[in-house]
């Protein structure tokens, strides 16, 4: 990951820690990560902060056997695209779930976890991961 300043990370805490995106009050579209303006209504849309759903369904998944720098301790791990049901899809790790339950269509819910721990400057990054719930 980028050996960056703290600002690089805290700027994104609301989204990483609390799944906070935004919502266009004009056309009712949800955005995650939040957008600067609504891509449907453009300047005419009125965006307001909004919590995203913390549950969803697996759209697709893969087991990663060769991970990037910062993920050495947890490889192999599962990554998945999750449909939150409000038009938003996000990419996340699936944790705390037995291998046979990680399937397309499985229900999942958000967890709060450590994401990366070997940043050279000692920054530990936290954020959302998901687990299968049924």
């Amino acid at each position, binding site marked *: *990951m*980028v050996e960056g300043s703290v600002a690089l990370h805290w700027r*994104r805490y609301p989204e990483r820690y609390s799944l906070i995106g935004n919502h266009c009050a004009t056309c009712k579209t949800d955005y995650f*990560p939040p957008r600067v303006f609504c891509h449907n209504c453009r300047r005419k849309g009125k965006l307001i902060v909004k919590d995203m759903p913390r549950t969803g369904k697996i*759209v*697709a*998944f*893969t*087991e*990663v*056997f*060769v*991970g*990037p*720098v*910062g*993920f050495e301790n*947890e490889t192999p*791990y599962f*990554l*998945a*695209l999750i449909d939150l049901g409000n038009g*938003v*899809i*996000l*990419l*996340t*790790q699936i944790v705390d779930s037995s291998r046979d339950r990680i399937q*397309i269509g499985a229900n999942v819910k958000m967890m709060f976890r450590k*994401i*990366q721990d070997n940043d050279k400057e000692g920054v530990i*990054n936290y*954020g959302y991961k998901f687990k299968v719930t049924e």
Partner: protein
Amino acid sequence: MVKKMRSVSIIAAGLSKFGENWDESYRQMIAKAALEALSSNVVEGKEIEAIFGGTMASGRFIGQEHIGALIADQLGLNPIASTRVEAACASGGVALRQGFTAVASGMYDIVAVGGAEKMTDVSTEQAAFALGGAGDQETELFHGATFPALYALLAQKHMEKFGTTEEMMASCAVKNHHNAMHNPIAQFHKEFSIADVMNSGYIASPLKLLDCSPITDGAAVLILCETSKAKKLSDQAIEIVGSGQASDSLALTGRKSLTQLDATMLAAKHALAQAKATPKDIDVAEVHDCFTIAEILAIEDLGFFKKGSGGTASLGGETEINGQVAVNPSGGLKACGHPVGATGVKQAAEIFYQLNGIAGKRQRKDAEIGLTHNVGGSGATAVVHVYKKA
């Protein structure tokens, strides 16, 4: 959309060796590729009026930006304008399109288009990080996504929806390694069987080591010229009859579909319309097979095969050199190698050789119309060009 533009042709091409070129720097590779392009004697260096160079991540790979100026310097072509373009793994294809536009516009008559990447001066981990910059740093890489992982997600959806199998994907790799046996500049000269690919170990399921293109050093150079002048200078002029480029969401999460790359479809639509051609007219194509699933997506999205049937077509040999359409006769990214910024330019060089009938043992018989397809990242940029003998 295209109005009153001039016709543009390729009149020369040059490639460095593709591979782990530990004894050559970025600078040496681009100079050697240029020297080879100019060795055909159709133009002198001093006739070149501008340079467009594609490089993806030189800042991370060699600590160097300002790549346009560096290329002009290495080629001894100062003080002409020299511009770097970047579109991740599609940097070369987009550089070609800028060169095409510059000549088509009437601004220049003769330009050089270069592409290069020096990837082995850093560790594999550093290279993977640099390449990760083609995806979304904030929503993909941060969460542990690698490029194999992103394409693995696309592969899983394609398998789910169309019954594509891992063997079908493997067949792309087998065919491309076979083709590369006859390409002297290719990184690999080694054949593999489907079983070899199947046994090569998962990188990100369902993609295995031999489904993935390698880390490669390499450079490629083309000389473009306005077509009427090109025909006077050379009997090998290959006209660029269509050019299309499109974008899509940087991250996979923003895509409308996960079983096709919309940017490829749109870029191909524009390029083929401009060329007044259909997918069936294409004899030979260099497509973006950074992973085997990417070749299957490509041959469907470009319209060579019906959506969902690309895996079957590949396994059935229809993309072999004398199949329905010759796909990746150079060996593709998979076996010729994938120096990211060079790839899109190398693809056009291969089509230049094929349409001139000088591709040796990998020659597609009677090749008349060619196509190149270059993708950035997981599909956020695609650029397609169509070619025919001028």
